[in-house]
């Protein structure tokens, strides 16, 4: 029987839509077992799967199902884009996106590329390649899918929609100006009919903004500026219009969402100029903050600033994780962040009320202490200076964007940490410094470790040092996945993908990939088998129990 392409696609779309409709949205407070439909699997950011086919008792039998090595060739790909026919030079891309898995197909991205892979076999269904105009190709966090349409962003700031079944492009829109050094890395977050996207960039002093776009035509629905304009709430935390409208605060990582409260939680980026606060005295709201937005309107409901007046590039983009549990003997809806500035924060997510702050590394030396609302107090003596200021952690922070995990079974939040030192040299002594305004020379680390924090106390329950090399401790922020099988999956900084006992941190299984994992691992059940999928550099690996 011959079915023409269009008809086949239509049939496929109908089947696909039916399959998607079978995933109740209410479940997105918990990751479905037969799919992984968002960046975090669900909306909570916990990256905790209830699947326990693979567990502490049998994980030793975990074995390779397949490997997919990135094929970025435009030959055979569906090609779109506004750039040149010659791909830009550069190092091989690294997989930082968490693949979505829907209806037996994995969807993931690196800058300028999206792939659909068969989730059983790891073989390519389609590949979309974007001809770029340029921009920072540092990474791409992944795609968003609504019904039979896929959404993603490019380094040259295009918002693109593809047909999920075929990879064929539906449209693309430019959302930011590349010449101002905006670049886009975010994975679109889809809430109802809102496709929420954010921009990145910190080389010039540019304002950050988050947008909602309509899923059909890709047009702007609302825009939330991460810094206020004159007269707006928060404006008094900046000296003038010039500073606040060039103040950064890039929303470059997807947030989390509470369907019951209808609040979208986002960690915002650092203020700009990055390493000098001379032209922006004040707290610089709403940079380095956890903010709660109404996803229908883009209006802010509350905020909590984890680093007032940052001068070290420590954005608060780290995933704010939703935790439901007891605190001080009472059940509460909470939100937690292991922040780049070296502190762990726990808030009430209904009101933003501060509940707890603790240090998650010992080496940090930049704060005068914790104030009455739990915020670390800025120490001007630890700002970049002409002769150099020794700061811990370095600008990459005590932790970073790689997705953390929280297990409701253990009550522990897991994330990778670094205790680095670097010297920060003020290089731009003008009264109106620009860009980064300072140079950094890295020194070394006194110990990087995978840590598990008890959210109720903020204390480290267990800590496992990462790998060592000739220069000492290595590894650091790492994408993690916890499961009801009592396991925690992640990298060890030494090129291994490891399954740890989530209660104790004891390693139970590993695969010597030879390359550190570079994304958040994810999991799904397909044909009754649990797959664990992780990216390491230019390859995606899937593991299953040996049968």
């Amino acid at each position: 029987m011959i079915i023409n392409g269009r008809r086949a696609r239509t049939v496929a779309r109908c089947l696909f839509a039916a399959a998607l409709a079978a995933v109740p949205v209410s479940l997105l407070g918990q990751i479905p077992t037969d799919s992984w439909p968002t960046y975090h699997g669900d909306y909570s950011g916990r990256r905790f799967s209830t699947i326990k086919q693979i567990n502490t008792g049998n994980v030793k039998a975990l074995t390779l199902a397949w490997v997919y090595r990135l094929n970025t060739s435009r030959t055979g790909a569906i090609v779109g884009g506004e750039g040149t026919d010659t791909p830009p030079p550069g190092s091989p891309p690294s997989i930082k996106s968490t693949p979505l898995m829907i209806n037996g197909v994995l969807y993931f991205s690196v800058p300028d590329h999206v792939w659909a892979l068969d989730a059983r076999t790891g073989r390519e269904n389609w590949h979309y390649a974007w001809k770029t105009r340029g921009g920072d190709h540092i990474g791409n966090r992944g795609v968003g899918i609504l019904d039979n349409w896929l959404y993603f962003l490019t380094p040259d700031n295009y918002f693109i929609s593809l047909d999920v079944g075929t990879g064929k492009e539906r449209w693309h829109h430019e959302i930011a100006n590349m010449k101002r050094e905006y670049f886009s890395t975010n994975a679109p977050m889809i809430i109802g009919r809102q496709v929420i996207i954010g921009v990145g960039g910190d080389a010039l002093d540019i304002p950050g903004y988050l947008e909602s776009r309509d899923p059909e035509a890709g047009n702007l629905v609302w825009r939330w500026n991460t810094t206020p304009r004159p007269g707006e709430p928060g404006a008094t935390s900046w000296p003038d219009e010039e500073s606040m409208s060039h103040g950064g605060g890039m929303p470059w990582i997807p947030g989390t969402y509470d369907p019951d409260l209808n609040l979208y939680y986002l960690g915002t980026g650092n203020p700009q100029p990055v390493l000098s606060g001379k032209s922006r005295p004040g707290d610089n709201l709403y940079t380095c903050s956890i903010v709660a937005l109404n996803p229908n309107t883009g209006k802010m409901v509350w905020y909590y600033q984890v680093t007032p007046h940052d001068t070290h590039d420590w954005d608060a983009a780290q995933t704010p994780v939703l935790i439901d549990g007891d605190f001080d003997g009472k059940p509460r809806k909470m939100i937690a962040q292991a922040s780049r500035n070296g502190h762990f924060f726990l808030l009430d997510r209904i009101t933003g009320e501060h509940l707890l702050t603790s240090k998650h590394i010992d080496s940090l030396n930049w704060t005068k202490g914790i104030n009455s609302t739990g915020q670390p107090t800025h120490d001007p003596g630890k700002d970049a200076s002409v002769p150099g200021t020794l700061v811990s952690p370095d600008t990459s922070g005590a932790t970073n964007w790689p997705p953390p995990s929280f297990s409701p079974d253990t009550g522990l939040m897991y994330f990778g940490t670094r205790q680095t030192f670097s010297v920060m040299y003020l290089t731009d002594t003008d009264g109106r410094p620009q860009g980064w305004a300072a140079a950094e020379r890295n020194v070394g680390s006194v110990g990087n470790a995978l840590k598990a924090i008890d959210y109720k106390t903020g204390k480290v329950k267990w800590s496992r040092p990462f790998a060592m090399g000739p220069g000492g401790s290595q590894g650091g922020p790492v994408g993690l996945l916890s499961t009801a099988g009592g396991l925690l999956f992640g990298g060890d900084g030494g090129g291994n993908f490891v399954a740890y006992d989530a209660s104790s941190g004891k390693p139970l299984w590993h695969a010597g990939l030879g390359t550190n994992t570079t994304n958040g691992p994810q999991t799904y059940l397909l044909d009754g088998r649990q797959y664990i999928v992780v990216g390491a550099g230019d390859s995606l690996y899937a593991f299953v129990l040996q049968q």
Partner: protein
Amino acid sequence: MNKVRRVLAVLTVRSVPAVLGVLVFSAVPAGAQQQALTPVTDTAAVERGQQLLVNQCGFCHGANARGGSGGPDLTRSTLVQSDENGRQLGEFLAVGRPDKGMPKFDLPRAQVADLAAFLHSSIYQNSNRRLYKILDIVVGDAKAGEAYFNGAGRCATCHSPLKDLKGVGAKYEPATLQGRLLLPRGRERAPGSPAVPLYADPTSVTVSVTPSSGPTVSGGLVRLTDFEVTLYDASTGQMRSWLRNGDSPKLAIVDPLQAHMDQLPRWTDADMHNMTAYLASLK
């Protein structure tokens, strides 16, 4: 299972040469940024543009174009940043913005191009932190540094200005000197000389491995994970590895720079600057 093992083995072998390079976490490594903007190569045009700016625009927009008495910062202007070789800038200048006090300027196309070259060059300099020049950092008190060297810093325990540090102030530029004061890991390599892997350098962390049978083997630590240990044996010029199983084999890790590591959290910036001034004086 065999097939699976083979696949992993192949992948591991393929990755080995790159291992040291990729094991270091790189979230946003300083200096590794890629840019949309490109440098302005016509330096003569940039210089002419700078003169033009100072003379014609500087009063309102500042001599460095970052804003002056009344005029906005031009290097942060969206119009300027989006401009292509002076085209949009020229169109704007021909009209001005009289309602905001910006008169029109009738400049020849070549002069507009020079102005644009200077502005784009400034913007590029601002945006590219790899190009930032560290300023004069030798501002500390060398005498206080010497006292720290012999006293609280306990540097004299291992070092001497007459021996290993002789002439060190002439050997390194100040920021490198300050960096090596904090942690002198690895050797500064002369241009053109072959790279020595860190594990083969005397400043590498070392490991001694004692298997359940056989002699202890020591060398530069290549890699230590929960599952394996690999060292570089300088006596044979070869790497050796052992799989780890609990406490076996026995390991002893020594960092020859442990005193520097222990000192890292103890430094005050003033002590660091004084020590840098002292070391810089050892010419």
